[in-house]
């Protein structure tokens, strides 16, 4: 018996505008560009991909089941720039075959810096899910699948039944990501680990013509999933939703692949689709998993180095969180909201110099010419926030 568990991440940051040291107004975000990107990605990915998913759910009479985690900042931008995306998610919700996960509203790294701030952002996110989608999340995923034992415990205390993490080799060792685990020392919460090989076959390698498995067909992928039978409970396919139509363009055949996949997988009588909470309800943990260090789903390192790999990144993050008490004491809701939007992990990802010289995925998703420019811009904005706090 192998369950296939799909989770798609939906996120759009509030990108900053060019903000010079000579600027002094409190308007930090590039509204024009954010609207443009939100509408473009909605047209290329969110709307057509949702249609594909909705069609699959209907065609398979509820046997096709999926989950999403949608950040609060993405929800806000949909509401402002492409409200039809929200309607589309409502239709998916109405099928009863879709789970929505909890995370931080601002797609932040707050767990690393402030438990209070982290909790408040998770509450804000679930509040948003209730308000907009009338949905109560039961399983949690942290920004960029960042995870360690402490987070497992903390999220259990918050009342979640499941938590998602990267099935990184450095924490799994010989163990398989296709079982479910219990965070070391936790009582009830269950840990679902991403099968990164199969996930990345879709998310990263699908259109790579240098890949010796190219082209990837639904049949071929189905055979790989079938191989898990008898060697695990679940194949956790976790990926950015933008894989469909944005990272992998429509002409790569990604939508056709996805339309075909459930049919192929369901041909095998032992296969089914389950959402993360259903997986957590269905299976007992195979054992306790000890993850003392932070893992994530980013880059080959699968650690924090994409956001905390150089002095600029750690400095910018530390400086943001140093303002927490003053901002909260200040009581200005707009100031709080602006400060929180600066916590979005993308801002720190743009400052990454790790792969910069080689040019790759960091560059592709980077609105700046260089990580230095992004740091300078960010620090100028932060300086203005600091002045507003003092006022």
């Amino acid at each position, binding site marked *: 018996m192998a369950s296939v568990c799909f989770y798609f991440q939906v996120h759009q940051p509030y990108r900053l505008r060019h903000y010079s040291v000579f600027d002094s107004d409190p308007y930090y975000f590039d509204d024009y560009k954010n609207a443009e990107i939100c509408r473009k990605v909605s047209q290329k990915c969110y709307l057509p991909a949702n249609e594909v998913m909705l069609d699959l759910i209907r065609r398979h009479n509820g046997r096709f089941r999926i989950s999403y985690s949608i950040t609060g900042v993405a929800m806000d931008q949909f509401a402002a720039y492409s409200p039809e995306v929200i309607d589309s998610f409502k239709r998916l919700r109405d099928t009863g075959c879709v789970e929505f996960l909890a995370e931080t509203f601002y797609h932040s790294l707050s767990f690393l810096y402030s438990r209070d701030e982290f909790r408040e952002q998770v509450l804000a996110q679930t509040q948003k899910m209730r308000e907009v989608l009338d949905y109560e999340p039961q399983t949690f995923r942290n920004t960029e699948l960042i995870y360690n034992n402490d987070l497992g415990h903390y999220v259990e205390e918050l009342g979640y039944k499941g938590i998602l993490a990267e099935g990184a080799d450095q924490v799994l060792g010989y163990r398989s990501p296709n079982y479910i685990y219990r965070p070391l020392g936790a009582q009830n919460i269950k840990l679902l680990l991403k099968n990164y090989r199969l996930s990345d076959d879709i998310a990263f390698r699908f259109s790579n013509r240098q890949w010796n498995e190219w082209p990837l067909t639904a049949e071929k992928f189905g055979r790989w999933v079938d191989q898990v039978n008898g060697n695990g409970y679940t194949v956790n396919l976790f990926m950015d939703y933008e894989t469909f139509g944005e990272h992998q363009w429509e002409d790569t055949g990604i939508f056709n692949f996805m339309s075909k996949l459930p049919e192929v997988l369901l041909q095998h009588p032992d296969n089914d689709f389950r959402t993360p909470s259903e997986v957590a309800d269905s299976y007992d943990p195979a054992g306790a998993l000890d993850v003392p260090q932070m893992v994530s789903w980013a880059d080959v390192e699968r650690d924090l180095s994409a956001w905390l790999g150089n002095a600029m990144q750690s400095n910018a993050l530390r400086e943001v969180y140093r303002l927490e008490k003053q901002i909260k004491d200040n009581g200005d809701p707009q100031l709080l909201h602006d400060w929180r939007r600066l916590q979005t992990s993308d801002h720190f990802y743009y400052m990454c110099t790790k792969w910069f010289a080689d040019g790759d995925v960091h560059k592709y998703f980077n609105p700046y010419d260089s990580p230095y420019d992004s740091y*300078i811009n960010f620090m100028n904005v932060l300086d203005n926030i600091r002045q507003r706090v003092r006022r």
Partner: protein
Amino acid sequence: MRVLMLGWEFPPFISGGLGTACYGLTRAMSDDGVEIIFVLPRAVRTDRSTHVRLIAPAPARKESTSTTTTTSHSSSTERKSDVSQVPTFQIDEMEHVTFVPIAAAVTPYMSPDDQQAYEAELSRITSVQSSTEDVIEMREITHESSETTSRSSSHTAEGDAELSGQYGHNLMTEVHRYARLVMELAPKLDFDVIHAHDWMTFPAAMGVAAVTGKPLVVHVHSTEFDRSGERVNQHVYDIERAGMDTADAVIAVSNFTRKFCVSRYGQASEKVHVVYNAIDLNGGSAVREGPVEFLRDDRLVLFLGRLTMQKGPEYFVAAAKKVLEKIDNVKFVMAGSGDMFRRVIELAADLGIGHRILFTGFLRGDDVEKIFRMADLFVMPSVSEPFGLVPLEAMSHNVPVIISKQSGVSEVLTHALKVDFWDINEMANKIIAVLRHAPLQETLKQNAHFEIRKFSWGDTAAACEAVYDQVLAAR
């Protein structure tokens, strides 16, 4: 492979990028085993501070051409016969290079529009050449070197009389006189390919190519459009264009320059090869020996380059003004000389920041080292910079750099901040950011430390040699 190189400036006389590039390239080619006959304008003066040992320098006099006042280091008898008819010298770090000095009053950064500068240069070099001190010094060097080479040269001070000979009355006539001297010389030499650096050597190179029928490679380190903006000197442009037209291949120091060669000089794009310059890391220590005491409370932002329109000194001053609106513990040092010197000083005074800008004049040797050690940031605001070696030097001294996007080096540098030269607000924004944020400085320095290691004169030399192979194969 034997190359007749029409080049410029050797230590200790290097005054800018062209000389540095000729030196780095030639040395790397010599290490590669390429035989080079390097034609150097001006009789070579000696200097006490030189780290280059002159071996058997021969004054440029006609009488000596029949004798064997040539290098004793020449191991190849074949080559000896090539150069035995002309006065030559060698320097001991370049085994395969034979230098042929040509007494001509041309220096790399002259403009035919500046007759005054030409006359100043002319009077400078003729006075130097006739000075007793210089002759004595030359003798001393000869004497020293004769010990190491166990060989005694016979030349005396009389030879120098010829050095002060008939120079042209302006730069253009001097360029053509230089061409004639080189053309007279060339048939006595044996080489496979001619490699000429920038326009002042092009007439000579075209002449030699015509006389000998050897293939010509011209190396464009800068164009008239870089130096003069849109107010080009038509005569210089014509020489540049004729040089490129005549050449079998053109080497441009960047894509930035290659585009000029194609769009402004009508060259076929496949004929123009981009070969980037490099930096010699053995020369300068990348380790910083602690800050210099004076100016300790002030941060120091450095401009180092000629004060000419091309280098954008006025943008640096304008950005300084903006920086000082935000922070005050900063000083700006402008190291260099040039025809905009007075204008820049006046601009600083007009903006009321004269006391914050220090002018050092042209720096050389140890003073350059010292100023880099003092600097917190180097800025190159060039309006049009074909390559830009100074940022690499700054990086090798562990100094963060801001460079103009209108430069060749910005194509290949990652760990540098980049601005449009005209965008003084952004320039100031970035200067302030570097001065304010230690993590930014640190990240830039750390990454630059590794990045400059990818610039090697060996690679530059190999790329030039590949161009030689190509033009020879096409014959």
